[in-house]
């Protein structure tokens, strides 16, 4: 506990120090990797000023977030301008604490699961099993990685609204194991209300209800109804605030129709900049289905590992959403230590990690060369962001594959051989 307290206070101090370096804050909040048309703070301020003129924060094409977020931040700003950075730091802290609690509960449940199924485990797998020292160290590591991840820090000091999305998702996962459907779905509804894609995670809530609840209490449909209920409440409140049906859904329209081709770290912008008008609608459907569809096969395959499913769906959302930023990636990067006992089975982890780091550094360099120095063109930045996306894909598939391999190995032994022979054998995915 004291470890956690030390980590949190160091994180808060670091952010406070960085926030008072005005030039750095201003430069970072202009980075396209950090703030997108949906999450940018300056667009929100622009929306405030326009709403004073026209009465509607969504008029014009400046602010593309949700109504309630703008209302909340507007009133906060009106109370005191210092309150807003404090709220963003508080978001990070609460998210880190939630992830810590979640990691503890999850690893405890996994350990209990493992111990209760000791009979099914093969001999000689002691070296790769989940152990008590994992339970002691990993939660602190999760909180540490979340708070000190450079992606989280830049999101906090640029006051990008992704911080709220991460907070709601962290609170959602923290309540997943506790069985309280109402709390879980409330946070998921808040996250879906802001950005559309987390709607896929409702399936995780239903599967968790099925796996972690006692026999009598199980009601897999309850999360679904609670979720719809919370969403209706949120839209009702925003309708009461804004008074126009079109404007409360305008941010969903923006996310789904992708009209703005501002560069960001995703795959949508350059593709839709370069295609012919004739194919625009078709490819829009293809890309959005790609971001929204994977929960179907994955939830069938990973139905008995709902937290792994949640991890991979979070990765898919943060990689394939229409306006991603680095802040979307912090959540699942901080969850990687949960599977540290399976890292042995990852393929080329070093290459993939270095690829992520290199592309993260390359992107701002290429941006500067294109926009400021005019010595490069758009392709350089596009290539760096494409490599960044590819590294995300590799990390997520590696992690899940390693987890499934670990499950196979603990049943069949660390060294594999075909029945009756001493020939060397490997694990392959076969039909």
């Amino acid at each position: 506990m004291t470890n956690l307290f030390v980590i949190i206070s160091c994180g808060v101090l670091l952010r406070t120090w960085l926030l008072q370096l005005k030039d750095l804050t201003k430069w970072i909040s202009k980075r396209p990797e950090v703030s997108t048309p949906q999450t940018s703070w300056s667009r929100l301020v622009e929306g405030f000023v326009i709403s004073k003129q026209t009465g509607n924060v969504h008029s014009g094409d400046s602010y593309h977030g949700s109504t309630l977020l703008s209302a909340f931040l507007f009133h906060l700003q009106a109370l005191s301008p210092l309150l807003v950075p404090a709220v963003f730091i508080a978001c990070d802290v609460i998210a880190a604490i939630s992830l810590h609690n979640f990691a503890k509960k999850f690893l405890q449940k996994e350990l209990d699961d493992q111990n209760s199924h000791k009979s099914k485990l093969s001999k000689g797998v002691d070296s790769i099993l989940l152990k008590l020292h994992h339970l002691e160290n990993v939660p602190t590591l999760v909180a540490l990685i979340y708070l000190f991840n450079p992606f989280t820090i830049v999101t906090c000091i640029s006051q990008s609204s992704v911080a709220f999305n991460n907070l709601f998702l962290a609170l959602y996962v923290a309540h997943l194991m506790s069985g309280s459907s109402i709390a879980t779905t409330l946070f998921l509804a808040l996250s879906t209300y802001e950005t559309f894609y987390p709607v896929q995670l409702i399936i995780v809530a239903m599967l968790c209800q099925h796996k972690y609840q006692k026999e009598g209490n199980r009601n897999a449909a309850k999360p679904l109804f609670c979720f719809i209920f919370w969403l209706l409440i949120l839209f009702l409140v925003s309708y009461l605030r804004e008074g126009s049906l079109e404007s409360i859904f305008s941010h969903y329209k923006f996310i789904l129709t992708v009209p703005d081709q501002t560069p960001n770290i995703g795959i949508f912008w350059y593709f839709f900049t370069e295609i012919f008008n004739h194919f625009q609608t078709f490819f829009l459907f293809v890309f959005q289905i790609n971001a929204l569809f994977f929960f179907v096969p994955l939830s069938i395959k990973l139905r008995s590992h709902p937290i792994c499913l949640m991890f991979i769906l979070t990765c898919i959302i943060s990689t394939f959403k229409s306006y991603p930023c680095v802040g979307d990636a912090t959540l699942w990067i901080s969850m990687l230590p949960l599977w540290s006992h399976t890292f042995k089975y990852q393929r080329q982890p070093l290459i993939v990690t270095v690829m992520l780091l290199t592309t993260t550094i390359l992107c701002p360099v290429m941006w500067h060369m294109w926009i400021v120095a005019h010595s490069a063109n758009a392709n350089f930045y596009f290539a760096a962001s494409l490599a960044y996306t590819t590294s995300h894909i590799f990390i997520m598939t590696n992690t899940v594959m390693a987890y499934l391999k670990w499950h196979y190995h603990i049943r069949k032994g660390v060294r594999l051989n075909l029945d009756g022979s001493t020939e060397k054998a490997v694990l392959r995915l076969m039909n």
Partner: protein
Amino acid sequence: MQFNILLFIVVSTVSASISSNDSFHESLNIRVLGNEQVYSFFNFTTNWNFENEFNKIHYNLFPRAIGQIVQKYEIAELHFTMTQGLWRYQLWGFPEASAPTGAQVWVWFKKGTTNIDDKWKGFTNALSGMFCASLNLINHEVTVSPQVSFRPTGVVESADNSLLRHGGLSRENLCTENLTPWMKLLPCGSKHGPASLLNPSSLQHSRYLSIGLHYNSLCHDVTCGSTYVQLQQHISVVHDIRTTLDQYPNFSLASIFDRPLHPSCPLATTSHTHIAPPPDADITPTMETRDQLKYLNLRNLNSPTNIKFTWRLLPRLPTPQTMGIGSHCYITGLGQDGGITCLLTNNEHSNVSIIFLQVIPWYLRAQIHTLTIKTNTGSNIEPTWFSFTPAHIRGSPHTLEMVLSLPRESRVTLSLWFDRGFMTWVTHPPDANHGFYIQPSIITTPTPHGVVRVYGEALLVNIPVPDFSMPYNVICLVCTVLAIAFGSLHNLSTRKFEIVPKSSPNNLFGKFVSVFKNIFKKSSP
């Protein structure tokens, strides 16, 4: 033969008597600007009383092309200018008619007009065909309806600003192909009167050239019991005197226009020339003086003449005129940021209220919260009235309109930041690296003599362009990344783990790697 002559006389008398309700007036005003430029302003006005509908009228002096357009698109007032060059207010004073660089069209439609946007589009296309200019590019991305800047100059039934449309194209160039149809609208063409000086090649060598066409309805008298329509065509041209080196600084109209001044158009009711005499020059032929201006009645001329200016003393350097209101705008910013800064100067001895209008295209995301208005002493100015309409993506532009009070003898700095936006590959114009124009800022000041407009400079902004050679490559690369993800996830969800024997690889690279590994295995003990 005699019967034909008689018939001709009868027909022309009859037609003249029918069409006696319109009149044509032409004038030429010349002013010498310092010692380097001369400003000539040609004004051709056609006034027409008519009581009936347009299609039952016999067109006499009023051009039928304009009449048909005005009738078809239900236009109450029409103003069209095309300009090449920049009017230097600080050096040259005030023009007789102010116009922004490029093309500008603003129209008041009649009360009760339906589908104004369709009519506006049809009208700009018709005007574009008539003047051989690309006015059809005036679309919803450059059209605005300002609330206070462009009030009607004549009589209209309704002044609701939803009936007003204003479009500007700063990129339009003024060529002889625009001059020719314009001159065809004049009753006498370019054969008689001041229009005889309009030599296209000499006009193209000028410093500043602006043609204008204005149509509106005016009252006959104060009670406004009846109205008449007026069509005003004017040309403002500023020539360099220095182009004729052998005679410098003496010049004549023939030396700048390359043509003599012919007597007036026979159809003109009045036709005259006013010249503001420079203090140290003599003007030949001698002319009478009216209101401190030299006046020449072209109806009294019998043959083509030339007006010569001869300097008695060596001309001095021109002194910059202290204009009442001046404006200078420029672009600031580096990289992704950009800004517009306008310096508004008030040289009058009292506070002046102005209306400031700036239209910014949608692809430059103006940040209205960065708008600052400061005087040169550093104090902030609050606008008396403020209106900002934000832009829509691929739609209407940002419209910033405000009423400001400029303090006396001060300079006010107005600055606004914008973000450079990104356009798709197909939305870029053919020469994408030329840059994109921001329409000039428009300052409107009501004065006792009427409404005075001062136009700023048209600004050129570069926005980041994508690589135009890359559509296929981009599609392939992005789809490859998607396929990597899809393939891995597909494998993950549809396949199970099985133990298989570690077989020798069957591709060339695998064989090479296994041979390499075997060498190392053998060499290690």
